[in-house]
């Protein structure tokens, strides 16, 4: 296979959607759980992103991170610093981050008005 010039060969053009200024909300319950998770550590943020995959084509990516990430929008939502990658901002505008306190299937949930369908487990949408 001729891959000798792979490093210099141009990548196929990919038309990325324009970044959207994200508005998101966090329910009181989710905020309380996030505050618990952050503890006393200063400078922590909630990263809310989207990855490919999952039963519906896109998967949520929730992480607690130190500080901020490059190419992310930094939002202050009810005192919680939230980082949203520009690359997936078009899929996350208008979401509500909730927390369901249940023995089975509980945890953080994202209600997303951009989702045409959602996987049963709530981690994936399309």
């Amino acid at each position: 296979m001729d891959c000798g010039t792979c490093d210099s060969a141009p990548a196929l053009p990919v038309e990325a959607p324009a970044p959207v200024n994200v508005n998101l909300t966090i329910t009181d319950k989710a905020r309380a759980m996030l505050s618990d998770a952050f503890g006393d550590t200063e400078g922590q943020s909630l990263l809310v992103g989207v990855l490919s995959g999952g039963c519906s084509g896109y998967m949520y990516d929730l992480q607690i991170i130190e500080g901020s990430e490059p190419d992310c929008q930094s939002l202050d939502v009810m005192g919680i610093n939230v980082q949203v990658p520009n690359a997936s901002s078009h899929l996350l505008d208008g979401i509500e981050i909730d927390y369901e306190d249940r023995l089975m299937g509980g945890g953080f949930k994202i209600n997303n008005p951009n989702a045409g369908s959602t996987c049963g487990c709530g981690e994936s949408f399309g």
Partner: protein
Amino acid sequence: MSFCHLRPDIGVLFVRGRDAVAFIDGLSTNHVPATPGSALRTVFTDRAAKVIAVATVMVREEGVVLLIQRERWQTLLEHLTPRMLGQEVSLLDLSNRNHVVYQTMPDGPIEGTWSTDDGITRARIHNALSILVISGQTSATYAQNNEAWTAWRVANRWPEEGFEITPKRHPYACGLESLVHENKGCYLGQEVLTRMRSRGRTGWVLVQGASDELPQERITTSHNGVSLAIVRTSEVQ
């Protein structure tokens, strides 16, 4: 008998980047291991588990090489590119600098692996079939060998895009059941395929048999009185 069959209808797509394996694994039916040197086939499916494209996969250090039927190329790109998001993945078209050749009864790497020698990469994806990706700079010449390939396909119950594999069928209905991994995580179409398998209801199945014993309207490929056909599971005795 060993023979080679040039496949100008198959293109070479290099998915480059740190996230390439996870990206391809998360969107297709087979488990794509992160181990460089692995070779396998997988299927990209839509939400209804209908086939978008079948790909031969070669895992490299720098990413993943996909061999794709050119007719399905654009549809696959339209499926992949909106999902690239912020992942470290880029797509390179290496079709013009390589030839794809099928070789039956091959020597070379063991099944499930690939190796490169003198500009020829050999991916062993079946005990009796390797796919060669040959640098355009090599002097070796190959020809299309359609009749021998059709005979091999019929003898080995090997489905092909445009014949058995179409965008209206799901993998279980066109002989691609071995490419649907039973234990991997979620991917687009997985819920539908898992439900079919667990209920034992795939609806249709690819069979091989004597041409005069198969429903004529279901036959997809024939050679010397033997055919491949896609029949209802209820029609299989």
